[in-house]
């Protein structure tokens, strides 16, 4: 079998396993409801917060930008957190990580495959949140003004950053048994704050803004807003031209991905050195 065929087969196996683990506990209807409830609740929290202050002082356009970015944040929550969760689940609940690790499938391929179901879930959540916003909350934008090519390009770049950062998070999960679950969740919460998902990064202290601008996700949310609804959220980032914005996203994604792969390698070696790869203590 050729190398790509082997890779495809391994990815398929990991994806199949991911789906089985993710969905086998419920019938499809329950599973869909379960998958929809959390993202919908988060979107509704934002909507009611907005409504609560709508009559007092607020900007509908600004809120639309936050709402849209929050919808795309589903990829971070599902895929990135999910990749760390795979480690926790495999090692501490099913106690199968050691078998996966010692098999020829390779952890990157395996994590990539396992997280594919999370990608599908995140995409459905995105659609659900945007549809709810459009139909129920009246959050609308001009489809004619959408710039599809840069939108698609920035979307793909962001996904690459998420997947590679997912490896890094998985690496942390390897060295932090017990705490790994919360670290995964915490990374998503930290990125919400640092990358200005539901507010402009201009509100962060200056030093934190610098950190935010090193992260590809900050550029990602800004690019998605600009190319989908026509405006960003941050005054500081609005000074960047479209090209500069995409370039910043591309460069930070590349750097971030390299750092993530290196970081995963370091953490994996440390886990192996400290005997954490088969440490099943949580459950």
């Amino acid at each position, binding site marked *: 079998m050729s190398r790509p065929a082997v890779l495809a087969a391994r990815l398929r196996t990991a994806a199949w396993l991911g789906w089985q683990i993710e969905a086998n*506990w*419920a019938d499809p209807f329950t599973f869909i409801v*379960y998958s929809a*409830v*959390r993202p919908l*609740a*988060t979107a*509704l*929290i*934002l909507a*009611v*917060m*907005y*409504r*609560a*202050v709508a009559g*007092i*002082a*607020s*900007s509908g356009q*600004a*809120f639309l930008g*936050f709402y849209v970015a929050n919808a795309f944040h589903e990829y971070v929550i599902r895929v990135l957190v999910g990749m760390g969760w795979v480690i926790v689940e495999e090692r501490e*609940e099913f106690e199968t990580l050691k078998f996966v690790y010692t098999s020829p499938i390779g952890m990157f391929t395996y994590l990539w495959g396992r997280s594919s179901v999370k990608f599908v879930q995140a995409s459905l959540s995105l659609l659900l949140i945007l549809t709810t916003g459009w139909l129920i909350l009246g959050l609308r934008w001009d489809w004619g003004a959408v710039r599809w090519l840069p939108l698609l390009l920035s979307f793909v770049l962001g996904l690459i950053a998420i997947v590679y950062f997912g490896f890094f998070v998985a690496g942390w999960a390897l060295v*932090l048994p*017990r*705490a790994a*679950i*919360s*670290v995964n*969740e*915490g990374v998503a*919460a*930290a990125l*919400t*704050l640092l990358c200005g*998902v*539901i*507010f*402009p990064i201009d*509100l*962060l202290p200056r030093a934190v803004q610098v950190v935010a601008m090193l992260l590809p996700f900050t550029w990602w949310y800004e690019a998605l807003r600009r190319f989908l609804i026509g405006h960003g*959220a941050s005054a500081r980032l609005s000074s960047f031209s479209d090209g500069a914005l995409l370039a910043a996203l591309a460069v930070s994604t590349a750097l971030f991905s390299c750092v993530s792969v290196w970081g995963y390698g370091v953490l994996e070696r440390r886990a192996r050195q400290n005997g954490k790869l088969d440490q099943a203590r*949580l*459950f």
Partner: protein
Amino acid sequence: MSPARADGRPGDLALNLRATWGRMYVRVVGSAREPTWIMSDAVFPALSMASFVLLYRALGAPRSFESLAVLGGIMATYWINVLWGMGAQLYWEKQSGQLQLYFIAPCSRMSILTGMALGGIFMTTTRAIFSIAVGFGLLGVRVAPFALAPLLLVFVVTMTALYGLGMTLASLFLLYGREAWHVCNALQEPVFFLSGLYFPLRALGALGAVAAGIVPLGLGVDAMRQVILGPAARGWLPVRVEVAILAVLAVVFLILARASLRYLEALSKREGRLTQRWQ
């Protein structure tokens, strides 16, 4: 404390008080020994809270809304503890083989759950200090001086009702196993929403009223906001009414927890699921 029995073994009250303290002790010492838990229980909820405060700031909302969000964020840590530290706990205990040791012990199961709850409240309160520091320190949110005694009363009643619900959820895990874990997972954010943690409860209208009758978090947060912020809390019902409803909910949940635990234990013993790790 009740005297020893004729057979030299401790009486029921002594037995159950010691069991409660034994189980609580795990969380009391654990709260200091597991620094990583501080991240999950304090730092990360505080990060979410900070995001919501900054959203209000971005929307140009009055500063009192930021106070609402900070108080909601603090109470969110308790809800997370109720879900994962109470509801999911018996599931973890089963997976680790601990549950069967509880079920062959002579103490009442409620004493174990009470120990878990008291330990959880202690642990979460130490964590909540971090959220208070972030909210009122880093983010610069301010509140006027307020009366401490009514706040303590509302807090105690809210915690009793909330952890009573947690005990009820815990027993459900014996029945639903892994599925219930997913239910817990699915309940976290929706309850944040239905309890109005980051906005005034009354903004939910009738939906908030229905939710408040089921999950005591919303009423508790609303009452605490009213005590601390006064009219700026944009309260839903008068504090007295909310406390009375919470007290009723507390009694109902404690009775429900005891009954459901007994029922589910019997059911599990009939079906042989009590000590089965994988299901």
